[in-house]
């Protein structure tokens, strides 16, 4: 799957194709762990932790459009993030931290990464708020919003999954569900539940 078709792989990742994500994880995992244990002499569980972090960063970079084109392979890109994460793990605390944006391509092999970059996505309060709202909003909004925002389904995939007539209906329904959710937030604010 790798090498020749790396940019096709990026497209599949962007679509959130679960099979591609799993296959890619499986293919690169072993070489990554061997590389990490040889170069950094770390425990395998530490290597797995860094691998998963690198994999998540790569995925978020693709999803959010920071990585649209590769000049080398996905594997090389993942290794370069991993290298930076290992360096970050072992680095002197007083050194300068560099943002993840700086490693948006493999040329950035020697650039350092803020290992806490994933914390940007960890907004516990808002996450729990949305989880609570999803529990209250009821179907079909709950299923539709979960598919589109949490599982990353495209409108086309939602049409198939939820038996809608076309993507236009999905987009309309999504818009209405979000509006409903916004009203629920406002109600909670009014009744001081937030």
């Amino acid at each position: 799957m790798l090498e020749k078709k790396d940019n096709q792989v990026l497209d599949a990742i962007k679509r959130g194709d679960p099979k591609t994500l799993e296959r890619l994880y499986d293919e690169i995992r072993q070489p990554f762990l061997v590389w990490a244990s040889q170069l950094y002499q770390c425990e395998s569980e530490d290597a797995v932790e860094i691998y998963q972090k690198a994999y998540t960063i790569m995925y978020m970079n693709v999803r959010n459009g920071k990585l649209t084109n590769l000049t080398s392979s996905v594997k090389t890109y993942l290794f370069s993030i991993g290298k930076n994460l290992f360096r970050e793990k072992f680095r002197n605390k007083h050194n300068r931290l560099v943002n993840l944006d700086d490693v948006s391509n493999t040329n950035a092999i020697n650039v350092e990464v803020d290992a806490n970059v994933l914390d940007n996505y960890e907004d516990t309060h808002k996450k729990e708020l949305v989880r609570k709202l999803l529990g209250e909003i009821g179907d079909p909004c709950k299923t539709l919003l979960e598919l589109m925002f949490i599982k990353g389904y495209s409108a086309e995939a939602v049409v198939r999954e939820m038996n809608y007539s076309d993507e236009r209906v999905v987009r309309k329904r999504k818009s209405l569900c979000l509006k409903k959710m916004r009203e629920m937030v406002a109600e909670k604010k009014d009744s001081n539940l937030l």
Partner: protein
Amino acid sequence: MTNADKLRLIEEHYRGILNANDKVSFNQLMKEDLAFKQDVKDYKAIFVGFESLHVENFQNNLFNFEAKHQTDNKTKVLELNGTVNKTAVIRPLKKFYMAAAAIALLICATFGYNQMTASPFDDNFIADAEIAVHIESIRGGEQELSQEEIIKKIAFSAYQKEEYDKAINLLEGYITDYPEKAAKDFQSYLVLGVSQLASEKTIESIETFNYVLHGKDSSYKQQSEWYISLANVKLDKFDEAENLLTIIASQNGHCHKKDAIKLLADL
């Protein structure tokens, strides 16, 4: 521009994927359309919350991918051992000596293995001493303690000395005799739960931890989640344990994240 288009702009703004043209439209609307500006503000919590849930879901998937490898590794070790045995060439006369030696070795190894290895529960359960620090004694210094605080202090001390039955008796008495105070005292419930778990009262311990988990004080919830996972492992309820461990392992700030990843691998 329709409302749906405006909503798309807001969503893409929060995901950081607005293209150049849309950025211009977005900035223009922010300047000219007060209602749009309010929408952008109101939808922030929703889109940021969804993005956090998306990452959480993605990381749960990674744990599932990884769990498959952990299982594969165990299988490969077994298969590898099988292959070595199959391909070994043994001379006929030596065969019996080898077989006898193998049987002797197997008996010794099995005995040794049973002596050395414990269950995943035993490998991972530690009655954390830090949860039973009697805070009132530290706060009050030399001041006289109330009757119920004295009972708690003795119970915590018994827990620290691994006298779990004594700790359970005292804490159950404290809960019965001082229900109002005890109802909000989640620390004592946590210490009681761990004591129950340590003294084979596993089902009772789950009830106790659930009380902590559903209480209003979040200080002891992470500990309770971890100990409920262990209790389920002890009861061989592996699916329930794995579900909870996966949740713990996916939370970056969880105090038992590393323990959960290790225990998941052990399972």
